[in-house]
């Protein structure tokens, strides 16, 4: 019954049983907070404080607190926005597309990746609101019936498309993520000893009993949601890219942007998932579930998307030269050799050169190297957005208006502040929610755990699905 592949590596190592899985994952939810976790949370809360202060300055005094000017009207705000949205892409890709492609290795990382998606989109959503001159009127971008006369939104505006794209993406991701959490919440509820925990998780698990009917509905809904989310993976960043691509600014007005942005988003999303998972597996002792095989698979995705991004960068240059448009040509030469050359070459180094190291198997399977490179990619992708936004704007058509952008302390505060917000949310998630999808990992235990379960122990948890059809076949 148990099959051990001679070529494939097991996805769960350490001879885990079903019960072990439940224990290992529920452990940090049930145990007292780990000291390392507490320190991390304190740091995250400190940065959250910086965020709150910076937002207060922005809202109270105005956007003038930032470093923007009449030529560069967007800089760190939209850079951060696109960066965070990009990071948010991995979650959906892992949970939806890899689900449809039957990639079993996704099981142990999808929960955290989806959570990361949700938190990244929350961070991203801060920026479109904060960057407005009058954020208290942000609801005007929604097509709401109103008493202002026949005022309506402008459906021609890519910013409006953004509103729809991001809000759809956020709601679908949230539902998908929460849906997957329900069976695991029920497990924790059943194991809980304290009354508060029991109450809380009972509430969160929506009365899940694990009946066949529940599982059947669960399967249906998750498949539908996977189907719905799949186009979103492509659409969200496509639409974000249209903020730039539909404009007239040289360096923005580029048809290659949609695929290039999507590839970049997956690239940065995977890098962020790696960064987080490498920390989580260490802090919460989950090395048997997030194995080197997982890391290697993700590194392969990074090398693919990183190369796509690299090709896109080169294509942009080629087209600028080939088009013969002097503004376009100057925009690209200025990117590489102008006053922001350092940003451009940071981007090239981090995004195009470093991921190529993953062609070496040793590096691909080295936790330390992967962690470092994942940070590089995160930095590189931030610079990519900075380069696209700031270097295109700062020298556009009329040389009289050329200007430089220098971030203010508040710009920096808001950026590091959103990191604080993100990590606060992620750390709370990691402590109070099951970071690994227990029931899905259990489904692959038999097929890919690295040990013969010749006599499957009867310790299998009552709520584990035992009739799943969609993964194992």
């Amino acid at each position, binding site marked *: 019954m148990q099959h051990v592949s001679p070529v494939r590596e097991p996805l769960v190592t350490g001879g885990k049983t079903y019960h072990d899985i439940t224990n290992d994952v529920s452990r940090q939810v049930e145990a007292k907070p780990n000291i390392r976790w507490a320190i991390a949370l304190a740091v995250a809360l400190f940065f959250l404080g910086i965020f709150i202060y910076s937002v207060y300055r922005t809202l109270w005094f105005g956007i003038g607190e930032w470093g923007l000017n009449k030529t560069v009207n967007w800089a760190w705000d939209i850079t951060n926005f696109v960066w965070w949205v990009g990071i948010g892409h991995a979650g959906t890709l892992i949970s939806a597309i890899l689900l449809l492609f039957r990639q079993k290795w996704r099981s142990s990382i999808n929960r955290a990746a989806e959570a990361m998606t949700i938190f990244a989109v929350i961070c991203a959503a801060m920026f479109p609101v904060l960057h407005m001159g009058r954020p208290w009127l942000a609801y005007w971008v929604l097509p709401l019936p109103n008493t202002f006369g026949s005022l309506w939104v402008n459906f021609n505006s890519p910013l409006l498309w953004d509103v729809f794209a991001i809000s759809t993406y956020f709601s679908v991701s949230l539902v998908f993520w929460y849906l997957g959490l329900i069976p695991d919440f029920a497990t924790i509820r059943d194991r809980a000893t304290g009354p508060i925990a029991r109450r809380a998780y009972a509430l969160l698990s929506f009365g899940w009993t694990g009946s066949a009917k529940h599982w059947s509905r669960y399967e249906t809904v998750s498949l539908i949601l996977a189907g719905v989310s799949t186009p979103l993976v492509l659409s969200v960043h496509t639409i974000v890219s249209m903020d730039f691509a539909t404009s*007239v600014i040289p360096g923005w007005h580029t048809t290659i942007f949609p695929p290039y942005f999507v590839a970049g988003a997956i690239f940065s999303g995977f890098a962020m998932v790696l960064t987080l998972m490498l920390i989580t597996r260490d802090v919460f002792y989950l090395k048997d579930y997030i194995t080197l095989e997982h890391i290697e698979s993700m590194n392969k995705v990074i090398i693919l998307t990183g190369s796509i991004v690299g090709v896109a960068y080169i294509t942009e240059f080629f087209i600028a030269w080939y088009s013969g448009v002097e503004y376009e040509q100057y925009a690209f030469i200025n990117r590489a050799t102008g006053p922001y050359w350092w940003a451009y070459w940071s981007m090239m180094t981090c995004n195009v050169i470093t991921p190529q190291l993953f062609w070496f198997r040793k590096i691909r399977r080295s936790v330390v190297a992967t962690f470092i490179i994942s940070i590089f990619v995160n930095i590189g992708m931030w610079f990519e957005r900075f380069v696209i936004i700031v270097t295109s704007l700062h020298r556009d058509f009329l040389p009289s208006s050329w200007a430089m952008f220098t971030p203010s302390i508040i710009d920096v505060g808001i950026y590091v502040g959103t990191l604080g917000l993100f990590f606060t949310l992620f750390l709370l998630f990691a402590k109070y929610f099951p970071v690994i999808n227990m029931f899905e990992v259990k489904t692959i235990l038999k097929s890919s755990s690295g040990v013969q379960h010749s006599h499957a122990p009867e310790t299998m948890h009552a709520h584990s699905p035992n009739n799943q059809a969609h993964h194992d076949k």
Partner: protein
Amino acid sequence: MQEKIKYWKGLEELENTPEFVRNSQNEFAEFLPVKDKSSSGKNAEVAPRRDFLKLLGFSVAAATLASCEAPVRKAIPYLNKPEEIEPGIANWYASTYFTDGDYNSILVKTREGRPIKIEGNPLSSLTRGGLSPRGQATVLSLYDTTRLPNPVTKRGEKHIDAEWEQIDQEIRTKLGQVNGKVALVSTTIISPSTKQVIREFGAKYPSFEHFVYDPYSVSGLLKANGGTIPGYDFSKAKTIVSFGADFLGAWLSQVEFAKQYITNRKVTKDNPNMSRHYQFEATLSLTGANADVRVPIKPSEEGVAVAALYNRIAQGTGGQVLNTPAFAQTKQLDAAAKELLANRGAALVVSGSNDVAVQTLVRDINRMLGSEGTTINTAAPIYTKQGDDTQMIRFINEMNAGTVGAVIFYNANPVYNHPLADKVVSGLKKVGVKISFADRIDETAVLADYITPDHHPLESWNDFEPRRGYLSLAQPTISPLFKTRQAQDSLLAWSGNNTSYYDYLRNHWRANFAKGGDFNAAWDKAVHDGVLEGVTSAGQTTTATVAPMTMAAAAVAINQTARNSKGIELAIYQKSSIGSGVEANNPWLQELSDPISRATWDNYLAIPRSLAKEMDIQQNDLIRVTAGNGKTIELPALIQPGQARGTVAIAVGYGRTHAGPVANLVGVNVYPLAATNQNGVLYINSVKLEKTGAEKVIAQTQTHHTIMDRNVVQEASLDAYRKNPKEVTEYIKVATPDGPQSPSKVSLWYDYEYKNHHWGMVIDLNSCIGCGSCVVGCASENNTPIVGKQEVLNRREMFWMRIDRYYSSDTHKDTSNLGTIETYQAMEEPSENPQVIFQPMLCQHCNHAPCETVCPVLATTHSSEGLNQMTYNRCVGTRYCANNCPYKVRRFNWFAYYDNEKFAAQNYQMNSDLGRMVLNPDVTVRARGVIEKCSFCVQRIQAGKLEAKKEKRRPKDGEIVTACAQSCPTNAIIFGDMKDPNSQVSQILRREDGERAFHVLEELNVQPNVTYLTKIRNNNLTTTNA
């Protein structure tokens, strides 16, 4: 008998016990027993918790209620409506602006009794409806919060408010007992009546003298020309040669000269002729930027150059040649001489030098060329500057010698703006009575015993005679804001004359300028028109001491100057915005960027690149400048293309210490560095430069100076234009299946249909001289905020209109043999002596506007008349429109600029009750967080259409003009309805189509409603311009 019924409120009142009577006096029967435990001992009553909470609750509630109350704002309605004032309808009054030699006949727009905007008076044949930036801005100075609200006397170091009666009494007594000379020191006065008042006042004293000086003097010019300025007429000149005279800028009469100058500079296919203008100067001036041929020379070379020209003209006309050193740059000088000789009778030579020797030669060059009577109107000499340096220096010496008993300063601030300020200060200590008419406690007034503040000119009656026979009047447009009194009234009062200055003025006119007939009617017409021209006037007698100089003496002097020159030479110049610094506290003028360097809020050391390289000076390095006279200042360096090698330049008008919060400590006072001798002031000196190691950043509104070979601005030579006008403009074509086409032929968008009007603008780059009048006019009309130096440094200036200034570069993409990257880098470097082109840039009101499509909330939309409209209250401030604007003309309200302490000093027009009076009530003051931009003065369009509608007709062409088009002294900006085939705009567009008319960035197919006309340069020295 009716019994009086008494109602009582309670038994206590009925009983009326003494205790009750006592308590009834207190509103609160008994104060809550809150006592501090520690202070009242062990047995004292301790505040019970409940009482404490009661009191706390009451206080919180009371405080909350009190803070809810809205502040009481008093609006006083017109219960008795003044006859002429219709709320919401503007009244216009003709008046005159004259400050610091800058003369403009003006129209003042008042709303509900307060002046809000100044425009040029088209009835004046001198300024012809044009108006200088300073003239535009003076309306804001009226509401300057620093103005003195009442007369003050000085007791010790303190200024004490005084009443007029009391101060008059004291002054009269003191002047009566004065021991020594009574001196009145003023800058140039061109008012015949005021001069009469002063004469009458002076007659009361045994020893009285009126000393006249100008902060930036032209006394050399006056001395060489018999005490007046020759009546230059640039409109008659085909060849103009100027040696350092910034005649389009702050030299003498910028608007008048600009109007004249431009008549011969406008070209059309039918008349492809224009004057040629040679400029020899040290620092790149506005005039030099407009010259066809510009030659950088050292200030000490100016005399040599003039003498060299003199010799060439003398040779050509058979005169005597002088023995002076040779001038190096013969090519341009030969061409100039040849052309001047060929254009005798249509030639004009001017010089900005304050050296009598140089001006004497210039006078004789003009005589030899037959300019007198042609390009110099001998019947109408110019009076706008009359200051005599020699006399002023004598005054300073007399003060120091202790022979001056009393001094009255009228429009004079020598402690700030005279090079010998130290001696003025020391001399003033020896003067018994010191009176100042200053409107604020300025640098000189602070030393005076009495300050009797003058009215602002917009509150005053006065007359002016800028040229002989050209009179104009100023009338009050608002009743005095403060307890000030017109200086003339003060002088009349002190001389015991009880007539008001208004009556005095009328009488003076009746006696001197009445042409017969009904004087009252003639007076009313003159007040209404603001000007009275063709008057037989006795002219003005100036106090300038005329010292005729022989040619030989002039040659000797020039040789001397040339020999004495050593080291780095400093040229001290005036900016057309700040001028001599009188109105330095006007934030519009401080923020109006310099037409050439585009710097704001500062003066700086303009330094040529060669010298910067030699001394390893970077832009913004703080440099210590030590002049030949030992005076030292420190100011930042600005690398100025066009600055002559071995020279540096600094502008006057900055470094005020007592002008008010806007101007104080902005820049450095450079007057003390001017060289002085017995004859006068020379605005040059030799200097030593030292790096201090520190840095002070200059706020420029443009930091990139070359055009990078983009055809954003287009220019061609006059030869090319004459050859084929269809070849002068490069039109972009795009490839289509039907061959190359104009980009507008290929469009994804539907075109708008304009049924009624289609507003458009034409800007002639050939006429724009870059003066910046339009910028101030726009700011004044549209309530744009002033943001101050730091925000300009942050590149957040808010002016809707800007003038882009581009220098030419030596490197061009087509001809460069460098690599691509190096070529681009080299293209960023301006030439050493660049050609300059100005381009007024404002919202282009695109028909396919990129800003309109990207706004998520439809806050910016297209009107049915072609306007790109901005709906401020719909804007949420995403700034996407500003990013997507290829012209970068949209402005964002980064902060609230009104009611904001951070901007209170610079932007007092929106932060003080007094300042707010200047705001145009027809234009919203924009909130924080919204985008704003040029609206094509939509409020004027609406008003014009309404007016026409009331009269049941269509608006006439020229009836609706934008503020920028209205203020342009050279009519470079034409606004009108492109739907009306007979409008000027339509006619120009038809005439110039395919020739000079082009759209900026046509390849983007945004289809602007603003069209530019290619600049034509008459700079081919091989063809003689005759």
